[in-house]
């Protein structure tokens, strides 16, 4: 059996999830030059928000097709509240501080959020099962697509399209572009930059929550640590694609996901490389790829080379 098409699909699915989370990193960085390391945990609380709706709000045995939109909304609300709260209380007071300060705050916040879910969410000390969409997998030629993955395949491009429309066509979106280019001048032009920054955090959180629901459907579980590694990968995807560029985030995610799938599948078949090809090496190859891209294209795949801001 030729497994290449299946491996490409595996990578595409994994990458789409990285991409959804990477959007949050890239938008926040693009506007306030802050690497929001707590974004992985915003993704995680989004997953728990969605789960809470299913477990504690909806009556038992609610049809998944009824539950799913409500769970999405619940996840998004929780993630957005946490993200906006973090912006207001953890990052805004530090906006003029040296760049290292908000970075450290972000790491602290990330730990605090993990521990909060661990300590206070019922049964969250080990994995909690997430509701599943029933129905068999879809077979297209030699490729199998799981029912749970269909959500991801549909949600990722739709999210991107809505985001692109929002940033390019709406007033707020153009305000975001202006703030990203030069916050001081944008302010002088009458743009409420504080509001724009809040919108950037909220949008990032929205996509992270969509990603978290996709994660729950794909793997059938959520746990308090799910945001840590995935957040790091999404950040890597954002850098790979060119941090600050929303299309870059999605592209970076997909490239990273495909690289992981292909390295697992094929590196061990190269003579002399047998011991470097297993899945436990996938992260290594993902980072080798990142280093190579940054060596030859420091701005990332879709990033623009910009002069340092004065």
């Amino acid at each position, binding site marked *: *059996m030729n*497994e290449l098409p*299946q*491996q490409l699909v*595996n*990578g595409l*699915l*994994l990458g789409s999830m990285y991409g959804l989370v990477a959007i949050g990193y890239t938008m926040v960085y693009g506007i306030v030059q802050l690497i929001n390391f707590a974004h992985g945990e915003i993704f995680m609380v989004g997953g728990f928000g969605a789960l809470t709706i299913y477990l504690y709000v909806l009556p038992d045995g609610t049809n998944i097709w009824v539950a799913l939109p409500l769970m999405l909304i619940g996840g998004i609300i929780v993630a957005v509240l946490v993200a906006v709260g973090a912006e207001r*209380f*953890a990052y805004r*007071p*530090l906006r*003029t*501080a040296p760049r290292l*300060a908000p970075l*450290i*705050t972000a790491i*602290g*916040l990330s*730990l*605090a959020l993990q*521990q*909060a879910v*661990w*300590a206070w969410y019922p049964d969250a*000390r*080990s*994995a909690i*099962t997430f509701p*599943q969409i029933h129905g068999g*997998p879809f077979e297209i030629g030699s490729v*199998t697509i*799981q029912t749970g993955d269909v959500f991801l395949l549909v949600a990722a491009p739709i999210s991107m399209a809505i985001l692109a429309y929002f940033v390019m066509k709406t007033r707020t979106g153009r305000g975001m572009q202006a703030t990203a280019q030069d916050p001081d001048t944008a302010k002088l032009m009458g743009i409420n930059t504080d509001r724009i920054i809040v919108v950037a955090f909220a949008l990032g959180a929205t996509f992270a929550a969509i990603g978290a629901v996709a994660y729950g459907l794909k*793997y*059938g*579980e959520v*746990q308090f*640590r*799910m945001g840590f*590694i995935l957040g790091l990968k999404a950040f890597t995807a954002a850098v790979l694609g060119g941090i600050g560029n929303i299309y870059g985030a999605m592209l970076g995610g997909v490239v990273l996901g495909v690289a*992981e*799938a292909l390295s*697992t*599948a094929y590196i061990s078949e190269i003579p002399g490389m047998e011991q470097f090809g*297993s*899945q*436990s*090496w*996938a*992260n290594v190859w993902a980072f080798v790829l990142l280093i190579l891209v940054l060596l030859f294209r420091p701005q990332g795949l879709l990033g623009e080379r910009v002069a340092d801001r004065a």
Partner: protein
Amino acid sequence: MRQRSLIAITAALAAGALTLTACGSRDEDGGSSNGGGGITVTIGVDAPLTGDLSALGLGIKNSVDLAAKTANKEKYVEGVTFKIEALDDQAQPSAGQQNATKFVADKEVLGVVGPLNSSVAESMQKVFDDAKLVEVSPANTNPALTQGPDWQTSKARTYKSYFRTATTDAIQGPFAAQYVYNDAKKKKVFVIDDKKTYGAGLAATFSAEFEKLGGEIVGTEHIDPETKDFSAVATKVKSSGADVVYYGGEYPQAGPLSKQIKAAGAKIPLVGGDGIYSADFIKLAGASGTGDLATSVGAPVEDLPSAKEFVANYEAAGYKEAYEAYGGYSYDSAWAIIEAVKSVVEGNDGKLPDDARAKVTEAMQGVSFDGVTGKVSFDEFGDATNKQLTVYSVENGAWNAAKSGTYTG
């Protein structure tokens, strides 16, 4: 002004994070009552009480607690009150080592039950051995822990204070291989492990026996236990044409792995060791996990007449968590410590000698009693003399014993 608010916020967050951690650890302290007067002996418990493996860890903690309570109620050792102190190792060797140091520093601790993970045990053995503090693991199965790093060629005991009530992977891996090849009639296996001490060791002993029997290994993989996405591996399993998968590792990865392999279209069973023998495996593997197999140490606890009382007492004690795979072994481990303490105290006019730890460790070698899991005693390496194993299969959402026996090389 800016600087001050920065400091304030960082401090607030740090304090917040620490408080939360503290909240979590508060309820991990032992639950036994500390009344009765006389001598108090603490039995330490080291296990993962939080995180992915906490289901197994909490089962260990509760079972040790039950043993201590039972000994107190029966006044099993005259003048001695047992209490437990449980520390969380989060399945991390570094945390295990810190816990070991803490136990050594507490003079009341005369024995420790744990840990769950072989890799954690590796980091604790020397600390305990230097202090002559006895450690009895209910769950470690890596042969090197008792028989030295070269156990395949020349066996040599490295640490005199380390004992275990579980059988080793040198027996468990081959036992699984014989079942898979002879009873389940599977000839082509895909072997996966998580590169950890336990998982890799188990996969290696399985593979050696499976090939010796005439089976074929059609592929091998090592997975990263930090991730949940095994789709690429599942696709490799499918295209390899294997009719069974052997996984050396633990249930947090084994569950999703089993599920993703079946989802990829390879409708073949996943077989693992005692590390996947948990109700959580079934939860994570989902409906498609039916038919998956696990070997575990000993006979099924529920079937042993000696265990009926344990199961009844455990239920009566009202623990929130199940005793899981190692409950019986944990109870027996704790009871072995209690027996050793009893013989030391009784041999010393009802008092603890000055070198109580060394004496207890010495007494452990000669301990022999009928425990929950059968006869409990230790050979010259500190291994359990009871070498029974059982194969379990997932049916109707529960583990069912398929075959019990003793491996004979």
